[in-house]
């Protein structure tokens, strides 16, 4: 198998990697902006091409109320459950009949409704969304179904170690806030229809809505869209309160949920952190990539590829409107949990003690630029990049700074960042399983 079967093979030096090129230009598409009379902002990316479009209606979540913690998520999830003119089944029938997809998604800062549709069916599918925005009623029977099914889902999730680790960690970092929410079955039970209706009215109003359109959307389609969401969609007298209570991290830093029969333990380590708006953030993204942000990262190389303790380990940064987090997460064999934690500690401290070798750093630079280029696959991905900026209050110069940082930050600067931000002893440490 090792002999070379013919001449062309001998001529080919397979040990030598081919020449390669760095990524030079990354061009991001920018949207057209239009503000409707009712205050709703519309950002449109018209790609032409295939007759498809994705439209997102994004609303800022209302201020978290610890005594009614589930209102933001429950209202969002139940938007497809009926209006004054259509019940849940009719909404689903209409959307499905036109081959469209209607999705609701709840996030920490915003909640949204997304429509994927063939552009030619916009005239049939848009009125459904418009109806939902104005006339959702949250029927009592649907609420009961929602509560029961969510309670059952939660029961199953609570059996998953990584799920429990994530919520214990979030609660520790963010306290009893929207970012720290760890719902119980009782929280679902306490949901009241009147509260949902009230919450809906305050949150789902045009001045609290950002519409993001991506795909084939010519002037005619855009006019249809703006007409549908401008005419007759009015704001309430009280604007949406999207401020949030202050985040107060827990004083306790070690959280161990013991499961004596666990085969694996979920580990989550980290701390409250700077977010995308901070000047150090792009540099930290480089440092994070080296530590645990890609398949060849130090955590993967050591804890998976050298020790075989886990199927996967990684680190990342969560960036939110009112906060941020840094975390390292894995599920490891229960018998090697302590060793895995101590290897993580070694890797974090190594980045504080020694500069990253040139070869590794140049690999990470190229990887990150290639990855950015590859993440711009189609018009939807360009819209997603815009959302990252827009909701953080940043402009397109962010990506210029990002690429400049990735290309030019020095090993010394990265070491300084590691020392400025990371202190393993002070990390929050969450273990679910055996330790």
């Amino acid at each position, binding site marked *: 198998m090792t002999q070379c079967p013919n001449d062309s093979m001998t001529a080919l030096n*397979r040990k030598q990697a081919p020449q390669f090129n760095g990524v030079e230009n990354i061009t991001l598409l920018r949207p057209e902006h239009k503000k409707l009379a009712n205050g709703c902002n519309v950002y449109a990316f018209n790609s032409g*091409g295939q007759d498809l479009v994705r439209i997102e209606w994004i609303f800022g979540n209302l201020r978290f109320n610890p005594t009614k913690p589930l209102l933001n998520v429950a209202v969002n999830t139940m938007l497809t459950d009926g209006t004054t003119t259509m019940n849940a089944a009719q909404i689903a029938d209409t959307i499905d009949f036109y081959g469209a997809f209607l999705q609701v998604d709840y996030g920490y800062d915003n909640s949204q409704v997304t429509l994927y549709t063939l552009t030619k069916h916009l005239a049939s599918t848009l009125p459904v969304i418009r109806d939902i925005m104005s006339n959702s009623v949250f029927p009592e029977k649907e609420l009961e179904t929602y509560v029961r099914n969510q309670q059952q889902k939660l029961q199953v999730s609570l059996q998953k170690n990584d799920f429990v680790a994530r919520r214990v960690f979030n609660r520790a970092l963010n306290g009893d806030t929207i970012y720290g929410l760890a719902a119980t079955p009782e929280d679902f039970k306490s949901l009241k229809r009147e509260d949902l209706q009230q919450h809906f009215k305050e949150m789902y109003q045009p001045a609290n809505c950002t519409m993001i359109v991506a795909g084939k959307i010519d002037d005619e389609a855009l006019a249809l869209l703006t007409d549908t969401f401008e005419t007759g969609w009015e704001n309430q007298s009280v604007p949406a309160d999207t401020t949030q209570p202050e985040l107060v991290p827990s004083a306790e830093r070690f959280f161990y949920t013991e*499961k004596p029969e666990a085969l694996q333990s979920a580990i989550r380590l980290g701390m409250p952190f700077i977010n995308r708006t901070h000047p150090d953030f792009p540099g930290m993204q480089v440092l994070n990539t080296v530590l645990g942000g890609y398949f060849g990262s130090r955590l993967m190389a050591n804890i998976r590829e050298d020790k075989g303790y886990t199927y996967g380990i990684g680190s990342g940064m969560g960036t939110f409107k009112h906060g941020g987090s840094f975390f390292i997460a894995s599920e490891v064999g229960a018998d090697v949990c302590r060793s895995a934690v101590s290897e993580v500690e070694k890797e974090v401290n190594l980045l504080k003690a020694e500069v990253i070798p040139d070869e590794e750093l140049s690999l990470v630079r190229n990887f990150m630029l290639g990855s950015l280029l590859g993440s711009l696959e189609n018009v939807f991905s360009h819209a997603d990049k815009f959302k990252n900026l827009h909701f953080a209050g940043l402009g397109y110069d962010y990506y210029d700074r990002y690429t400049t940082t990735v290309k030019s930050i020095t090993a010394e600067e990265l070491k300084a960042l590691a020392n400025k931000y990371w202190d393993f002893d002070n990390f929050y440490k969450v273990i679910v399983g055996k330790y």
Partner: protein
Amino acid sequence: MVNFNRFTLDNGLRVLVHEDSTTPMAVLNILYDVGARDEDPEQTGFAHLFEHLMFGGSINIPNYDGPLQRVGGENNAFTSNDITNYYITLPSANIETAFWLESDRMLSLAFSKKSLEVQRNVVIEEFKQRYLNQPYGDVWLKLRPLVYKQHPYRWATIGKTIKHIEDARIEDVKAFFKKHYNPQNAIMVVGGDVKTEDVKALAEKWFGAIPAGEKYTRELPVEPEQHEERREITTGKVPLNDLYIAFQMQGRLDESFHTVDLMSDILSRGNSSRLYKTLVKDKQLFSEIHAYNTEALDKGMFVVQGKPVAGVSTEDAEAAIWEQLELLKNEEVFADELTKVKNKTESTMAFSEMSLLDKAMNLAFYELMGDADNLNHETLKYLAVTPAAIKEQANKLFRKDNSSTLVYLAGKTEEVTEAV
């Protein structure tokens, strides 16, 4: 419409090129015609373990991932019961690096003992993480052997037991490579910002001299038709009961496939589907319910799976599912209902063309099934399905003596006090 050009190297490697200049990226996807169904019953999980070893260095290149990351690329792979598929995405200017890496590991692996040792552990942790340490994680380990008695689909890709993974030896790895990893058993798709002529030259340069190897001829036992009702009741450390009813169905290449596939959409695709509307919303018997098929190349499985609401007996829940299946057997579906699932299929096909990687993977898989061009006629096949054909397939599939029912009962879960 996914356009492509196609050529075959002298050593039997089939190459397809999909030119798409709207992206600055390129994809190189290699499908090897080997899956868990090709394993020895005493060495299950091997195809998947082998996939891990493909990243452990090849004959001339000690490290696979590093050189790719260095040129801005990413890669991954998956193993199914039917195939093993590897893919790379990278800036198109660096496409040659992908040829270099993929051709070297098709030529020969390094067969490092250390890599085998480590990946054995990694796969064992994967086994635990996905199948053993998850609520309901072992369902497929139980359901497959209930549905299949002869065919190797009776085990899951991860394998029957951790023991088989522990026992893997380097000689087995070498033999597996020789048998399955050669140009004749592979289909390569290169897509994105590339030109067919350039791909041809690069394919000749890097893959042309790899020996053709021996052609693997698949001779798998045929799963006999099922003529008895099968049932297993199991209790796990889970909080809720879960019900699975599986039916044998024809394979992916059978002409009935598109009809059966739409039948599962009628039953459970989206909130307007029959099972969701009737059993979750109206009768409130289930908290969730799904119907789907495994899209297997040999005889497949059509599965209806649902979690009954607390307080509903599994018997009543099962009867309610059967009532819906009987309805499909006795009455033709409504014209509007069929149009709806056809429209949904049509738009799904259109949306999937937004992704370069999806297109490349689809081309490779359709080529394996006979002709990549069939990808472009797939929608027409769905549009041709009739209500009468659905009724006919419902009668063929949904027989008690073609059913395997797994009742997964809630047992005592570990009492967990969350540390908060």
